[in-house]
């Protein structure tokens, strides 16, 4: 989680316009989710992996680790789709019959399962592409431009910033506790942890008050107005996106009919 955040600020696609990156990731995700053949998700997966590893320069290890996160969860859900249990042993592609009950795989189910598996993985890779190449602050700006309600984008700005402030505070308190043997036994661990939460809560309260004061001191009147850095708009990128998406969309349409 924190790792993703660090790469978002220091990858080779950092200077590309955030709207272009978001557009690329989101449209590809939609294309991938609406795909009708297994080819589309495979192409998407390959392109996103290439984009993340080769273009953005994220280490392969990091990318693979991230892709493994949803894998176990996906695997379980896909297995339940692929396998079926029935008293009628006919129509199975691969089966084992025990005491009149047949456990096995129907061929169409297998295809559905594989397709679903690849579709999900492809969609996840699109999200990772966006998350690894674009800082949250810029994604929020894009949301703001898309007319997402101000209250949501402003909350996102503040929450994102304060996740890190509180994490730092919690780390400091924990370190102070550990250095005074606060976590040597089970009992003291429970006690220390509860004190950590209590004092964190107090600090949250004070910090939020201080933040409000500091913002008021800079003429805050209820709306957070900020300027974002200008990025060069690249027509080449837009054309590349179109050139990439169109064949995939056509493929989807052909597969449907």
């Amino acid at each position: 989680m924190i790792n993703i955040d660090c790469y978002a600020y220091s990858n080779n696609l950092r200077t590309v316009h955030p709207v272009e990156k978001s557009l690329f990731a989101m449209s590809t995700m939609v294309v991938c989710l609406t795909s009708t053949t297994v080819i589309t998700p495979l192409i998407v997966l390959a392109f996103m992996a290439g984009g993340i590893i080769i273009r953005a320069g994220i280490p392969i290890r990091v990318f693979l680790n991230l892709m493994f996160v949803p894998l176990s969860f996906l695997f379980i859900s896909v297995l339940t789709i692929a396998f079926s249990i029935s008293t009628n042993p006919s129509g199975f592609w691969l089966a084992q019959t025990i005491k009149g009950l047949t456990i096995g795989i129907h061929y169409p189910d297998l295809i559905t399962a594989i397709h679903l598996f690849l579709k999900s993985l492809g969609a996840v890779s699109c999200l990772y592409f966006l998350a690894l190449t674009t800082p949250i602050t810029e994604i929020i700006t894009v949301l703001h431009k898309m007319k997402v309600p101000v209250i949501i984008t402003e909350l996102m700005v503040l929450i994102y910033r304060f996740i890190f402030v509180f994490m730092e505070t919690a780390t400091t308190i924990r370190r102070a506790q550990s250095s005074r043997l606060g976590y040597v036994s089970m009992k003291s661990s429970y006690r220390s942890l509860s004190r950590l939460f209590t004092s964190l809560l107090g600090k949250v309260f004070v910090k939020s008050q201080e933040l409000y004061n500091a913002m008021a001191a800079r003429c805050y009147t209820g709306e957070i107005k900020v300027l974002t850095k200008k990025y060069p708009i690249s027509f080449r990128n837009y054309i590349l996106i179109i050139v990439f998406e169109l064949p995939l969309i056509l493929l989807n349409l052909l597969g449907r009919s």
Partner: protein
Amino acid sequence: MPEVILEAVDLKYSYPDGTNALRKVCLQVEKGERLAILGSNGAGKSTLFMQFNGIYRPNSGCIKYQGRDITYSNKALIELRKKVGIVFQDPDSQLFSASVYQDISFGPLNLGLSEEIVAARVKQALIDTETTDLVDKPTHLLSYGQKKRVSIAGVLAMEPEVIIFDEPTAGLDPRHALEFMQLLKKLRDSGKTIIISTHDVDLAYSFSDRIAIMCSGEIIGHGEPSELFLQSDLIQRADLALPWLIEMHSELVKKGWLPPSTPLPKTKEDLLRNIPPKSDQQSA
């Protein structure tokens, strides 16, 4: 008669929990001066600054800007905050955005300036605080001193008349502390009024045109640095020490190395220049 720009008149303030943080503070800030408010921890410096900016409202007494009372209507508060900027002690509670650029642009945009002007001001503030190369980093990956400089830039970009710095050099390394002092000089040369709070007597002595000493919610003395530091009872009452320059100077005078008429040194260079070479001493 210098013009008084900001003034606290009989200010009293106690926090909701009953702490009497300010017990009758009278202080005049002159236009264009560098004023240091000197006091130990808990003396009430930060609380006083919150009053100057209209964040807290005094229980009694008032704040005057250019001779006029602050009315605490929304409009008056905004006007005051345009003129009086404050850099808080803890940069973590001042930076609200993870993006350095966004945070610095927040203040000037609130002044209703156009985007071009704001962009230019942000750029200048980045240069003045030497944070240009931090602009692409998120605030949570910056060091304390870097965050501090970004929060200073956020206030500089608003170009207020009076800039208040709460404990500005706490947490800065010597090089950046020195650069910060140079920035202050530059600001003063451009006509800004500067108020800093500190418990660092050396800093206050070399930085300021005037010093006010604060102790348990009161201003117990104010005046020119060289006069003020000669009143040792005052310094002791406020739990402060003497600047090393003055201590060294008086020791040298006491032991006869310097004639009593030697003027007080304002900088280390002054002091070193005052000390005569050894051969002179022997021949005399």
